[in-house]
């Protein structure tokens, strides 16, 4: 419940405040979102398995987003930004899907 409330508060805040994202930060936004999705799915799965831990969740969220953005930034500086972001998306996508499979097993027993 508290998770849903947090998410709604965040979306409303984002829509109301209309923060202007500086141009240099814009390429990292989608990657950061994919990383955040990964952390959230991991949290949901842990919650369903009864091993949720707040500290792990917070740390994994922050480190995921920051590291994903950093990797893409580094790739941009080296001239392989698009390839590196593809790699990041692939790895995070695999993790998201495996977490989603875990959630599905817990919820539906299938």
């Amino acid at each position, binding site marked *: *419940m*508290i*998770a849903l*409330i*947090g*998410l*709604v*508060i*965040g*979306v*409303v*805040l*984002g*829509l109301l405040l*209309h*923060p202007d*994202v500086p141009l240099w930060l*814009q390429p990292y*936004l*989608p990657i*950061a*979102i994919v990383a*955040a999705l990964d*952390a*959230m799915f*991991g*949290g949901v*799965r*842990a*919650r369903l*398995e*009864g*091993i*949720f*831990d*707040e*500290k*792990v*969740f*917070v*740390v*994994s*969220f*922050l480190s995921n*987003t920051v590291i994903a953005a950093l990797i893409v930034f580094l790739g941009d500086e080296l001239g392989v930004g698009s390839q590196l972001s593809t790699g990041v998306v692939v*790895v995070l996508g*695999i*993790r998201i899907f*495996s*977490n989603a499979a*875990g959630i599905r097993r817990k919820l539906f027993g299938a």
Partner: protein
Amino acid sequence: MSLLSDLFAGKLLDPGYAEAAARRAASGGTRRRGGRLSGAGVLAVLAAAGVLLAVAGVQVRRSEPVAAKERARLIDQIHARTGETDALQRRLDRLRADTGRERAGALERSAEGRRARRDLAAQAAAAAAEPAAGPGLVVTVDDAPAEGRGEDGGDSGGRVYDQDLQALVNGLWAAGATAIGINGRRLTPVTAIRTAGEAILVDYRPLTGPYEVTALGDPDRLHDAFTGSAADRRLRALQERYHMRYGTRRTSGARLPAAGALRLRYAAPAPGAGR
């Protein structure tokens, strides 16, 4: 710890939670019971994720109108420039008509001038310098429909080439046409019909199919003279072999504009002439 081997083994890809749970169990459950979503940290993190999502969504939607605006601006520019050239063309036509009238008035004054004027009119008609209208023959050719193209011809088998149009135009001249235009573009005796890439250029301007070649002249005589000519046979063969579109029809009132810029090749102003 390889990603793929872990994935195939069905193991957790992120063992952080399991390790934390194991640590808790080892320390005798002194920490808060796991499995509950609680605390300000979770709230803050999810709020941050929500902000990220919302900002990204807003960003995407904001950049759409920018692209649309750019496109609209370009289209406006194209329209404005096209209007400018049209206005210039109209001005050119008006000035040409003016000079033509003044020349006619000047030549009218003497018998020699009247003869020169008749000469000039005949030359202008031959050089396609004046608009022409009258009955004529319209020949339509077009690329074969995509599914009807012959296998042996491949992709390029059913396309109209510049040589086809050249042969057609020459055939129509030979059949006695007095003026010819392709898709409303008047041909002079020296107008080039060429291919550049996949487009056919007439007078260095690209045309798209279907190509309507209008020849002015007595429709029946034109038709009789053209039927069976080399150009007619060539196009018929193309039609049978590649299913290219080819057809002729008579028209009672075709209009052809004057040809574009006429360049004087050999004439030069007489030294010391002019007012």
